[in-house]
């Protein structure tokens, strides 16, 4: 008797419910002719729904409750341990032991008693669960069967259920956002318990190395994130300076100058740049762009040209951003009504003058919006900078220096050995929270700017 078996039984019962309900409804309609309100199919579906839902809901609730209660009970065995995270470690050890996993927790005096308790309780729990859930399902089945009659509005009820399910599905999207915000916020606040906010936001020394031993509390690292932020911004600015002109002029050329044939050929090719995974760009930065820039550095006698410089990472990031700017700007330019373009040309303006004096001003909001979105994309990018930029936080505006970014730090801090409570790990969440917040603001501003420009034409 395992959880899968229970689930299968419940599903089986509800399928059975569908079958018999459909049959009953069909029988009724055969007697009454066409007077039955809903088709047998709907009776079947609704009955199946009624059969399965009480059990499913109870199962989910039960699972949550059982976790909490078991954990509480197990904690009693380890009441001598005061530090909650360490106690959790021992509790986890008991739970894992059932799966034949050995751990240091076995050293504890009460360990084996705890495992015995756990095993027996889980058995009882499972037995109880199976009986209750199956009985509940059978009751539900009989009840739903009784409901079937010629007047019973099964189709309406079932469609209501479907609509409610879709409603819940759509709300799920909000839960994702809430999930992101809460999980980030929670850890960030815990981080700020050890490191003061102003140190983080305004400190200029970033060196998050922490001690490995559990009992060493207190930071021996510094968490001034300013150099990390400036690194991110520096690289993103370099990226925008590469992608901006190329993307903008490509969009102008393709939307105003190119013939349809050229446009249908060139536009998809530029879109391909957007489809290439960023890890490929990172690799490209390391094997081609990096050495190329180094050669140029030697050729032009530039000193202090780091192989992990912001310039290299920023340029490749810029290449990746080109299609964003090109495509969004193209949309903005194309949305300008043709009549404006014709009006200007009819007055003897050249196409370049029309573009710069009429079309671009008319689509300016849209262009600004697209640049903001592209910038937001640039600061959130991870793989290119992880592979091409440096790890050492360096407060500089020199593109030839190596800098690090928010995303690089997050990856660095959370891969490898993880200790979930140290300030080092938590700082990653704080960084992520800032990143999320910043990109969110950029996106909101960008969308509102674009909306404002669209209103101009309504």
């Amino acid at each position, binding site marked *: 008797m395992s959880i899968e078996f229970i689930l299968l039984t419940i599903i089986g019962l509800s399928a059975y419910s569908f079958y018999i309900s459909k049959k009953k409804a069909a029988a009724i309609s055969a007697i009454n002719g066409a007077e039955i309100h809903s088709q047998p199919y709907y009776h079947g579906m609704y009955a199946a729904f009624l059969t399965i839902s009480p059990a499913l809901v109870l199962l989910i609730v039960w699972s949550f409750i059982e976790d909490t209660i078991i954990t509480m009970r197990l904690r009693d065995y380890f009441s001598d341990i005061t530090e909650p995270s360490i106690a959790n470690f021992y509790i986890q050890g008991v739970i894992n032991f059932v799966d034949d996993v050995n751990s240091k927790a076995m050293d504890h005096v009460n360990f084996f008693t705890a495992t015995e308790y756990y095993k027996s309780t889980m058995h009882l729990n499972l037995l109880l669960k199976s009986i209750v859930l199956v009985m509940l399902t059978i009751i539900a089945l009989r009840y739903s069967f009784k409901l079937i009659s010629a007047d019973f509005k099964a189709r309406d009820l079932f469609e209501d259920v479907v609509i409610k399910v879709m409603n819940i599905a759509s709300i799920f999207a909000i839960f994702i956002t809430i999930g992101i915000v809460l999980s980030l916020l929670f850890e960030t606040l815990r981080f700020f318990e050890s490191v003061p906010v102003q140190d983080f936001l305004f400190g200029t020394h970033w060196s998050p190395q922490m001690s490995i031993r559990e009992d060493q509390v207190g930071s021996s690292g510094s968490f001034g994130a300013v150099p990390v932020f400036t690194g991110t911004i520096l690289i993103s600015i370099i990226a925008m300076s590469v992608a901006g002109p190329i993307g903008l002029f490509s969009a102008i050329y393709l939307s105003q100058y190119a*013939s*349809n044939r050229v446009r249908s050929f060139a536009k998809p090719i530029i879109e391909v740049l957007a489809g290439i995974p960023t890890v490929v760009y990172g690799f490209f930065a390391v094997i081609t762009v990096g050495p190329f820039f180094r050669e140029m550095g030697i050729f032009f006698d530039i000193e202090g040209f780091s192989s992990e410089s912001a310039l290299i990472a920023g340029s490749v990031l810029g290449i990746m951003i080109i299609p964003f700017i090109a495509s969004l700007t193209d949309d903005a330019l194309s949305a300008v*009504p043709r*009549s*404006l373009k*014709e*009006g*200007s*040309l*009819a*007055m*003897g*303006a*050249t196409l370049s*003058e029309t573009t710069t*004096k*009429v079309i671009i*001003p*008319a689509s300016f909001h849209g262009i600004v919006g697209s640049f903001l979105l592209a910038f937001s994309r640039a600061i959130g990018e991870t793989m290119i900078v992880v592979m091409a930029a440096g790890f050492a936080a360096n407060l500089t505006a020199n593109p030839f220096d190596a800098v690090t970014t928010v995303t690089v730090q997050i990856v660095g801090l959370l891969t490898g050995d993880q200790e979930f409570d140290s300030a080092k790990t938590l700082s990653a969440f704080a960084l992520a929270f800032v990143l999320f917040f910043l990109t969110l603001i950029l996106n909101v501003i960008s969308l509102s700017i674009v909306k404002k420009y669209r209103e*101009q034409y309504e």
Partner: protein
Amino acid sequence: MSIEELKVSIKNLNVFYGEKQALFGINLNIYANEVTSLIGPSGCGKSTLIKCINRMNDLVDICRYNGQIMIDGEDINDSSTDPVSLRTRIGMVFQKPNPFPKSLYDNVAYGPRLHGMTNSKEDLDELVITSLQKAGLFNEVKDRLFEPGTGLSGGQQQRLCIARALAVNPEIILMDEPCSALDPIATAKIEELIEELKEKYTIVIVTHSMQQAARVSNRTAYMHMGELIESGLTKTIFSNPEHIKTQDYITGRIG
């Protein structure tokens, strides 16, 4: 009777959109300081014809044409002719008013600034005011010159577009159904304006309304399915047309 000076001469013009021929052997003379109107049922090619005069059809990829269009005796399709400077001699007013999303002032000043027509701010101001006056709009908007051009009513917007076109001092003004998006009062104002403008400019107007043609134009050309059926003095066309097709259109037998 004033001397009739030939301004635009179109000889044997054929226009193709891809494989489809839109205009067949058009021959038409347009005289200076007159209003010539092009009438005919939908799709007969009036707009296409008018757009050949200022080479706006060049913007359409698939459009090709052969034939001769001469303005003041010079072939405008000659390779030495620059369409950009050609268009400064010809103004165009479109069916739907298309003011730029800039201020009224900037709308009118656009052309003069582009072509470097004035040397000082005062000259430019004067040019803007004069153009607005010629378009009969100045009094209505003189205290909101720096508000967006898109904030005016339909009729006012169209007059703004006319002022804009006048500001570059064209010789010819092409109007493509300029009143079709306007109400009768605005239409009347525009027609009044056309009457005044013809003193100084040569006007070609495409119109869907025979009555309008009869009201405003000196000469009328009737087109049907890409062919120029008949052209001549408006009086003659409307009272005594030569071709049966013209007659049919005018009497409403075909629309």
